[in-house]
């Protein structure tokens, strides 16, 4: 479990990005952390992994404080930054040098993931393309079997088949004890993969809800005219009518459109908070 307790963070003490953020994140879920560029997504992840320290308040992950960066904590969490770092080593050398630090590392799974992601296993890692390097790091991170996996824009640089493969892999490694956190502004990459959504903007947490809860409370559909008798979170004119997100008063089933949801929540945060109060 990840717990934010009155967390305040800012790159300068005078100008805080996050103020008194309090929330709990349960194990067993894949979280999509959405936000515009510069909204504070990476900052939140860095506070979780302990490469940035809260100005006030605290973060605890499974009872441990990331700030102290203790080995017993670091071997239970893996953070993939937006840009990848790979040394001039072969995959085998990398595995021999890095894997011993992760007690739950599974070598068979590692090579299976590499195969599934179509990562070339010959030559040195730093000679691979950016996309291949990224896939390599994702495969290694998944094989480490850490309880918490934080990924910052993991699909950046991946081609279309690799994005699909990435979604499949993430779904396959998920279990009840794990928390997977995926931060992105490429919302469509997360569709059908995540089961919880967090939306941040300017350091404010605008939404923290499960997909099921969103589907229960909101209805996504295309209409000829915007309905007037229900609350409208978002409307966008399309070729064949207007795509809307409205309050789901009739208990309708509809397919979630993350991009529209994101636009609706960021444009209409007050209504979003009424519908999805932050716990």
């Amino acid at each position, binding site marked *: 479990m990840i717990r934010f307790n009155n967390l305040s963070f800012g790159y300068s003490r005078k100008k805080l990005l996050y103020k008194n953020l309090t929330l709990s994140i349960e194990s067993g879920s894949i979280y999509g952390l959405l936000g515009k560029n510069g909204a504070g997504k990476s900052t939140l992840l860095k506070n979780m992994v302990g490469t940035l320290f809260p100005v006030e308040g605290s973060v605890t992950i499974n009872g441990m404080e990331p700030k102290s*960066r203790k*080995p*017993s904590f*670091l071997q239970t969490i893996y953070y993939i930054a937006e*840009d990848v770092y790979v040394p001039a080593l072969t995959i085998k050398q990398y595995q021999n*040098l890095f894997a011993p630090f992760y007690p739950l590392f599974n070598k068979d799974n590692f090579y299976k993931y590499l195969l599934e992601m179509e990562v070339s296993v010959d030559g040195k890692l730093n000679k691979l393309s950016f996309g291949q390097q990224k896939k390599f790091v994702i495969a290694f991170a998944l094989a480490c079997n850490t309880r918490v996996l934080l990924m910052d824009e993991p699909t950046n640089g991946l081609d279309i088949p690799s994005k699909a493969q990435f979604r499949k892999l993430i779904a396959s490694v998920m279990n009840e004890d794990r928390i997977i956190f995926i931060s992105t502004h490429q919302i469509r990459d997360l569709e059908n993969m995540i089961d919880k959504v967090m939306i941040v903007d300017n350091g404010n947490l605008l939404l923290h809800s499960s997909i099921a809860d969103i589907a229960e409370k909101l209805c996504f559909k295309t209409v000829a005219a915007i309905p007037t008798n229900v609350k409208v979170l978002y409307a966008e004119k399309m070729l064949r009518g207007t795509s809307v997100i409205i309050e789901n008063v009739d208990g309708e089933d509809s397919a979630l459109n993350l991009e529209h949801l994101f636009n609706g929540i960021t444009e209409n945060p007050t209504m979003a908070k009424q519908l999805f109060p932050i716990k």
Partner: protein
Amino acid sequence: MNDTFNLTRFGLLLKKSVLERAMQIIGLMVFVLCFTLMAYSIFLYIGGWGMAQNLSFIWGFVGGGTFMASIVFSYFNTNAGGSAYLTFPASALEKWLCGVLITGVFFCLIFFSFYRLIDYCFVTAYHNGLDRSSPLYQRMYNSVNLFSFEGNIVRQSTILFVNFAGAMLVGSLYFNKVAIVKVALVVCGVIAVVYFLNLAVAGILFNNIDIAFPYYTVLIKVGSEVGNVELPPRAGAVADAFLQYILPATLWITAYIRLREKEI
């Protein structure tokens, strides 16, 4: 699990730290050794034994050691590299000790061994090349000896090494990009400030100050005569202790504290 220090983990980390950037660490070491060999040869050709032994040792040891110190923590050039390093499951103490061991122990051991080897080869070649029947043989033989590791040059170089390497370790944790250049600028700036401050203080106390470099060189020039102002023994001992122990210890320990507190 011991979160502060674990010998097995430390061994693995040390192996990883060296092999992960073998080209940088081993490559730099090889470069420094080659540079020292070349410097020895060139200075021997242009300036004789004293210049060859002293200058190649100073440049190789102090210069090479400073360069080595600048790369042991150079993970922070990129956000991803810095994050990967900070979140790697080893303690800050173990990571710091790796840096200290590579810079302060491995580099010194390899450099001193190599230097002794090349010096021995050069000196032996010189001795063997002398004409044993010459009346000057003994004098010429005795004029060239192995470079002493107990002399003043080594002592002064070691003081420079521990201070510059310490500054570089700290600097590479403060400056994420081109740390070596930024630290060199800061060190030059500090030395310039200290020099002019010392010159101003010496100027208040004495007339005719010629040079007033802190601690070792305060020279007074009267006409064509130059005199050296020496510190009183007690003040000299304090200055010695500061330069030899307090300043380097502060710098090297600051690197550990900075590594613990480093954010990226």
